[in-house]
């Protein structure tokens, strides 16, 4: 689980071009969306959906489920560890 969290941080920073952030500066429990969190928006969410598909073979098609999965990096990591196909 910790390993997936570390991987996700690096991949998300790279995919979303978050130059001002480092893996160490992101808390895995910080909300991804909204002003109190990392401030990501809908295009970033799609970027993460594609990232999960390419790297872990996960096809997230359900918006309601996606909302729960995309709470923070920890929740994404949990979903990846349970559903990854590669």
């Amino acid at each position, binding site marked *: 689980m910790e390993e997936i969290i570390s991987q996700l941080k690096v991949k998300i920073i790279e995919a979303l071009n978050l130059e001002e952030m480092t893996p160490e500066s992101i808390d895995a429990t910080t909300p991804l969306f909204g002003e109190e969190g990392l401030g990501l928006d809908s295009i970033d969410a799609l970027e993460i*959906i594609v990232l999960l598909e390419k790297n872990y073979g996960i096809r997230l*098609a359900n918006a309601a489920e996606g909302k729960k999965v995309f709470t923070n990096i920890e929740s994404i990591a949990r979903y990846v560890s349970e559903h990854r196909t590669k």
Partner: protein
Amino acid sequence: MRQRQGYGRFKAAWSTYRNHCLFGQVVIDRFAMWAGKRFQVEVEGSDHFNNLVGKKEGFIQMSAHIGNYELAGYTLCSDRKQFNALVYGGEKPSVVANRQKMFAANNINMIAVSPDMRHLFEINSALATGQIVSLPADRLLGSDKSIEADFLGAKALFPYGPFSIATMRSLEVIAVNVVKTGTKKYKIIITPLRYDTGAPRREQVIQLNTAFVSELERVVKMYPTQWYNFYEFWK
């Protein structure tokens, strides 16, 4: 627009009048289309569309607020690939449901921008299963992220999303513009938009945006009175 086109006051006033008349006609034509009326449609660049439809991968159609884009949905149909159009989500559910019903016969699906990001999952599923997704690329819709580009000699903001979505999956992209050429005639102009899929992502996004803006300029210069963005477009 007057400054951008270098028009004098009289020509600008006349063009604005023509612009409003044509927009009114296009709105009427749209209702006529919904009522079943068909127009004579010339398609320029249909090979590009047919070529992409024949491939396994999905592709993106980028549109702008020129002429009557909705006509493209009726004309560029395919049995092989569903056409998914991202639309403004502020319409009444009953209006959306009725249009959806009419479009279903043409293998068209409308994806409304939704505050819960539902539209992104739909766009993603459509592209992952090799379908066509149509995105308006000249107006910010859904996300505030933008790209600043030179358009007709001055800076303007274009949405980041469409260009980012296309490059995420290295998808092929065509620009589709539909212009009115006569009382009952329309012309669909299809142009492939190229970018280097081997370049860094940010560079790909900019290349694709530049290709889109360049095509938009070409079409707006040919049909300046059919440009329907009624707000302060330039920064």
